[in-house]
């Protein structure tokens, strides 16, 4: 068997094995016109945002019923369904749409908000600098501002007193909310992360739920 053919078979096997996993994580939105669930990928998300200048209704900030023993002020992230909940009194939560880590970058755990920042400086981690030339030019830090990928606010997630390198932050790509797109950070649109930042205290518990997580923190 030639080397090229062997490589082709390996890639085919990988495609067969990975295909169902990728399909399982597909975001869908309900199309009220056709009354059908339709796949919602990066291209469709960008088109939707360009047409409507806002996200699909499910990913917009709203108060929802939420039964939990966790105290108000706790953040609960449902990475699979792309929602962040901020627990409120009276069996309710404020729900925000989020973007999460793409395949292989998802994580789960129980951490806390270690610190927060307004218009934060973005310093890409060494592993991102190594693999991404766009990140490499900001290895020493990109100042905060409207072009900064961390957006308007950042909540730095800590495991004990240790920075996990993961953050909840804003974005310059608001159409990516609802998708698996990041390197593990939780992204929100800038209005939402500003609202969350105004309500959250340093030290708040953060529970991250993510089926198929590549990594666990704090448990």
């Amino acid at each position, binding site marked *: 068997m030639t080397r090229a053919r062997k490589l082709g078979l390996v890639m085919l096997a990988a495609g067969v094995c990975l295909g169902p996993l990728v*399909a*399982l*994580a*597909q*975001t*869908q*939105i*309900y199309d*009220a016109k056709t*009354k059908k*669930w339709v796949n*919602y990928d990066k291209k469709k998300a960008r088109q939707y945002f360009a047409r409507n200048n806002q996200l*699909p*209704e*499910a*990913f917009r900030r*709203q108060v*929802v019923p*939420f*039964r*939990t*023993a*966790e105290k108000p002020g706790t953040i*609960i992230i*449902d990475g*699979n*369904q*792309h*929602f962040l*909940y901020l627990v409120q009194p009276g069996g309710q*939560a404020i*729900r925000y*749409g989020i973007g999460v880590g793409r395949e292989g970058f998802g994580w*789960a*755990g*129980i951490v806390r908000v270690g610190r927060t920042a307004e218009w934060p400086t973005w310093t890409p981690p060494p592993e991102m600098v190594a693999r991404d030339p766009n990140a490499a030019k900001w290895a020493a830090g990109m100042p905060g501002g409207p072009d900064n990928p961390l957006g308007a606010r950042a909540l730095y997630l800590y495991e004990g007193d240790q920075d996990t390198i993961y953050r909840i932050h804003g974005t310059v790509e608001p159409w990516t909310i*609802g998708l698996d797109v990041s390197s593990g950070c939780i992204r929100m649109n800038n209005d939402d992360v500003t609202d969350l930042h105004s309500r959250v205290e340093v030290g708040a*518990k953060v*529970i991250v*739920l993510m*089926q*198929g*997580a590549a990594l*666990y923190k704090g*448990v």
Partner: protein
Amino acid sequence: MGSRNLFVAAGVGLAILGGCQSAPPKPEEMARTSLQTAPADLQLICANAAAGTAKVDSTKVLPTSSRQLDAMSYSVDLDAGGQKFNCIVDNNGSVRSVQPVA
């Protein structure tokens, strides 16, 4: 049959057909992933129940996967400080069982 009766019959037929269609989801429920995990609050209700069963601090119990069993209930897998548990919870938030997994 007169035209009036025909009109009534057509109306009844349409009403029956309409009744057969599933209702659209509420606006806040118009997004999902094909990975049909349990709602986050139900997963955490299970985590709380497993903490009691395992006698482990609830800050060490994390749901690791979940799936819908039927229209009324979900199964949630949990890690409680290294011990594995399975929990069945219904849509109302009532925990039906918490069992250690060998």
